[in-house]
C-alpha cells in the first residue's frame, strides 16, 4: 500500500522536481500540487543525501520510481549538475521506466506548474514535456 500516492482510474504522467535544495523541491511540488490537484504524482527530489545543498542520483531515481504510474515521468531540474544527476538516475531505474521518462530543460517552477496541470488532464508524456519546455515563454505581464 502506498498511502501517499493517489490512485486514479486513468494513470497520469508523473512529475519529479530535482533541485539542489530540498526546500525548493518541496515548495515547487506544493505549488504545482495546488494548481493541478491531488491526482498527479508530484515527487520532490531535493538536496544531497545528508540534507545539504546538492543533488543525489539515487534520490532522483527513487523519485522517478514513485512518480511513474506506468505512462511516463517528466523530470525538471534546476541547475546543470541536477540535470547530470537526473541522467545518472535514468541508469538506476528499470529500463522500461527510463524509456518513458523525459528530462525537461524547462524552468523549474513554471515548468512544474504547467506540466502538472497538463498531466492532471491526462496529456501524454510528450505533451507534458513539451508544455514544460514551453513554460519558458510563460507570459508574466511585467510590462
Amino acid at each position, binding site marked *: 500500500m502506498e498511502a501517499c500516492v493517489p490512485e486514479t482510474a486513468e494513470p497520469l504522467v508523473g512529475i519529479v522536481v530535482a533541485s539542489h535544495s530540498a526546500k525548493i523541491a518541496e515548495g515547487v511540488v506544493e505549488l504545482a500540487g*495546488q*494548481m*493541478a*490537484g491531488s491526482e498527479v504524482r508530484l515527487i520532490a527530489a531535493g538536496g544531497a543525501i545528508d540534507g545539504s545543498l546538492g543533488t543525489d542520483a539515487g534520490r532522483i531515481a527513487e523519485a522517478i520510481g514513485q512518480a511513474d504510474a506506468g505512462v511516463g515521468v517528466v523530470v525538471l531540474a534546476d541547475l546543470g549538475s541536477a540535470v547530470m544527476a537526473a541522467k545518472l538516475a535514468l541508469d538506476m531505474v528499470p529500463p522500461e521506466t527510463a524509456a518513458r521518462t523525459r528530462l525537461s530543460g524547462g524552468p523549474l517552477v513554471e515548468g512544474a*506548474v*504547467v506540466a502538472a*496541470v*497538463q498531466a*492532471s*488532464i*491526462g496529456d501524454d508524456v510528450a505533451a507534458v514535456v513539451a*508544455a514544460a519546455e*514551453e*513554460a519558458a*515563454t*510563460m*507570459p508574466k*505581464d511585467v510590462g
Partner: protein
Amino acid sequence: MQVAELEVHNKSGLHARPAATFVKTAAGFRSSVSVENLTRGAAAANAKSLLAVLGCGVEMGHRIRVSAEGEDEEAAIAALRTLAEGGFGEAVAG
C-alpha cells in the same frame, strides 16, 4: 458549435489557480474547446492548455468568448459558464 460570451469577475482573471481550474474543467469534455479574449482582441486559444490560456492575458473585467465543438459541446459550455459566474473558484470582487 456552442458559444458563450462571458465576463470575468474574479480578481486574478484567468491566471494562476483560476486558469488551472478553467483548463481542468474544459479538459473534462471530449469536445474541442477554445477561449478568446474579446477585450484584448487576441486570437482564440486552446482551452485545454494552461500556457495557451495564460497567454490570453484575461484580467478582471475582461470579456471572453468560449467555444466548444463536439459531442458534449452543450455540457462543456454550461460547465464553463457556471465556472465563470462563480469566479473560477476564486472569490468574486464586489
